[in-house]
């Protein structure tokens, strides 16, 4: 396993880490829902000062707000292209779920803005439903404990820990071919189209 540059821009926190054999060599983050564009290169440049030799890039593919997500993925792809190294995508919600200490089924939610949350349901560490986007009340009605930034924002969280994707988990998940995601998970449904919750 080579040294990984891990990046996630799916939440209001831009996180970057350099990880070797599951160990964190360097980690940095910057908070701000509109600062991904300048945060990613600044953080990566700082990380490269600690370890310039990168073997692969692991990128959180979301779901997440459109522009922030695209900024992270665009950077990851061109950086990998420049270095002729592989780039691996992982569902960002999975990297939050990996740290959740909960025996029963639970839901991880991040902020989708416009009064909605991105969410996915987990059972025994595996994603069994989602990712989807819905109003918080719809997700609460499912009756499972909630974790993640989206749940904390709407005060429906079980705990205010594990808000953001964990980059060690992101890299570990990326080693599993079945957990990989090829492209960005936008999943936002068009505003004008009546959604499932309205039909319900």
């Amino acid at each position, binding site marked *: 396993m080579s040294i990984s540059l891990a990046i996630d821009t799916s939440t209001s926190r831009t996180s970057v880490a350099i990880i070797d054999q599951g160990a964190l060599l360097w980690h940095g983050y910057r908070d701000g829902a509109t600062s991904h*564009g300048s945060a*990613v*290169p600044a953080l990566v*440049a700082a990380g490269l000062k600690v370890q310039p030799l990168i073997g692969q890039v692991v990128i959180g593919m979301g779901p997440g707000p459109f522009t922030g997500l*695209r*900024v992270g993925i*665009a950077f990851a792809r*061109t*950086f990998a*292209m420049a270095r002729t190294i592989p780039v691996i995508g992982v569902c960002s919600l999975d990297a939050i779920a990996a740290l959740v200490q909960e025996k029963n089924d639970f839901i991880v939610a991040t902020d989708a803005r416009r009064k909605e949350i991105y969410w996915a349901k987990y059972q025994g560490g595996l994603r069994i439903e989602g990712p989807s986007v819905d109003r918080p009340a719809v997700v609460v009605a499912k009756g499972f404990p909630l974790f993640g930034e989206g749940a904390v924002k709407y005060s429906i969280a079980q705990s205010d820990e594990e808000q953001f994707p964990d980059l060690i988990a992101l890299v570990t998940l990326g080693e599993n071919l079945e957990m990989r995601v090829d492209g960005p998970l936008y999943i936002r449904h068009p505003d004008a189209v009546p959604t499932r919750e309205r039909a319900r």
Partner: protein
Amino acid sequence: MRIEPLVLGIETSCDETAIGIVETALKRSKLSLKDIVAVAVTAGPGLVGALLVGVASASGLALGLGKPLYGVNHLAAHVSVDLLTHEMPVEPTIALLVSGGHSSLLQIDDITSSVIKLGESMDDAAGEAFDKIARVMGLGFPGGPAIDREAQAGNPRAIDFPRGLTQAKDWATRPFDFSFSGLKTAVARYLEATPDYVRPDVAASFQEAIVDVLLLKAVAAARSTGIDSLLIAGGVAANSRLRLAAQKRCDEARIRLRIPPPALCTDNGAMVAALGSLMLSAGRAGSRLDLEADSSLPVTTVSLP
């Protein structure tokens, strides 16, 4: 297109294609990323989402390659593209930048550091006026080429459409600004009032009104600044009537005229690369890797620090 020093230019609107653009550019030029000495990218003005993704793509490349990054002004890049086809330096020059998004008259003393705005459109950009009139005449999109084609068979003096901001008081107060909304209204009224209008004549007369006012002001700008060089850039610079009339009027006024080939007039990566290359040659410092794209970057800011 090979320019020295070799700079990769990114003028992009979405990340899904950024990699494709870079790969295509390298394949066409038979070069590899190792040959690149710097990366240049549009930092503004433009749509904020598109700019952010373009800048992220460029900074990923620059950081990955360990090469400098130049975040440059889209409008200055339009002007720089002329250097791909002309060896001589352009400065100092007056630049008339006309496209669907902008209509500006600029004074350029040094394209890498000193761009002064003399005037701009108060309402529609010139290209926008072409698009809107083409639509009411049922000529399709984009309007510029459609009107250009239709006008070939028309008489440019058939109808006397108004020339915006060319009254004596306008020359006194805003000599180098443009306004095309009055012209647009006049054409629409004419079409309404004249059911059996001759379409080629309307197209030619409308086009003539735009070309006339653009060149009147461009030549006046050259005269008033004492600069005997005019460079026309942007998508509307591909217009055949503008190219012809500009040559005639510049010859009469003893102004050297430069217009890039039509293919280089519209938005393209080469123009961004050209400006990056000039910045590098002039010894200008690169931008910070975490530069902030600016959707309303003023034309006077050639590149970001």
